[in-house]
């Protein structure tokens, strides 16, 4: 495949996914995997899994796995095209909806929609926490790190970054092996 064809394929695939990624990129991970590994043969299963782990380890939003898929397939241009395609369409939609949302701020139905969506969203955040805890805490030492960082974040004003730094340092020192 010519490199320009590959970039167009990346742009088409991710801009389509951008508009169906309800609940964020993690919801369309299975589809990205299917396209990248099974349909287009851009990479192996192992490649995809390690790209996902790197995206989780990097700071920033979780759409970064799409950046890495683009990078793996077509280098830096691929990374940029994948990022733009994944974020662009949904950003435009959000901008337009947010304007309408704020215009109807004081109406009864708009307040009810906001009040009704909120608890469901909070339930989703609890869910993400739960699913990640189950995946991350393979030992009692890791569970202790999770509990400690939750406690520090909830009860103190200490910047949570220091929890992450301390946990990474413990890992480098070999505490979790």
């Amino acid at each position, binding site marked *: 495949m010519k490199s320009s064809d590959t970039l167009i394929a990346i742009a088409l695939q991710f801009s389509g996914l*951008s508009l169906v*990624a*309800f*609940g*964020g990129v993690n*919801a369309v991970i299975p589809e990205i995997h299917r396209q990248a590994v099974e349909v287009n043969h851009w990479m192996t299963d192992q490649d995809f899994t*390690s*790209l996902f782990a*790197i995206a989780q*380890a*990097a*700071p*920033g*939003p979780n759409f970064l796995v799409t*950046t890495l898929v683009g990078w793996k397939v077509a280098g830096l241009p691929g*990374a940029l095209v994948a990022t733009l395609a994944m*974020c662009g369409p*949904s*950003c435009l939609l*959000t901008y337009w*909806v*947010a304007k309408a949302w*704020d215009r109807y701020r004081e109406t009864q139905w708009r307040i*009810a*929609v*906001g*009040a*009704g*969506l*909120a608890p*469901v*969203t*909070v*339930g*989703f*955040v*609890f*869910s*993400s*926490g739960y699913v*990640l805890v189950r995946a*991350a805490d393979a030992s009692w030492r*890791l569970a202790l*790190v*999770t509990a*400690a*960082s*939750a*406690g520090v*974040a909830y009860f103190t004003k200490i910047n*949570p970054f220091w*929890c*992450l730094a*301390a*946990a990474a*340092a*413990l*890992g480098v020192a*070999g505490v*979790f092996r």
Partner: protein
Amino acid sequence: MTPAATPWTLFKAFFSIAIAGFGGTLPFARRTLVERKGWLSAEDFTETLSLCQSLPGPNIVNMSIVVGARACGWRGSVAAVIGLVGAPVIIVTTLGALYSDFGALPQVRGALVGLGAAACGLLAATAVRMAEPLLKSRLVITAPFILAAFVAVAILRWPLPYVLLGLTPISIGAAFLWRRRV
């Protein structure tokens, strides 16, 4: 919205959220936007996140668009989203290149495992902080929906879009009746 929110301060705020956000940006977004900058109240934050969650695309990217647009129109949105996305894209591609060389080192693996464990603790604390104002102001119509969303997604592992579509109409209906009753 405080007068301090300009395209430049939005860029800086979302840049710092992105850079600090190992293993998820949400805890840092709430801390920066609600507790440090005061651009959103606690209730506004949850409501804005709800709006962003019910639209397609990465939630935190959508949030940067909404918060930016409210403060300074499309210029605010552009500044916020570039602040949020720019540095992580550079960092992650660098990491991708490094990983092919150093990924097998036990120190690197250990650091990743530790980061993951701490990051989900932060997320759990954020969830509790987001739940508190809802439970205090209207326990009866929020607790059942928080619980139902959690059970459906975390325990039963149903796809999130379906849960959103199935649960929110009921939750919105309950909120509507609740307001008329009060």
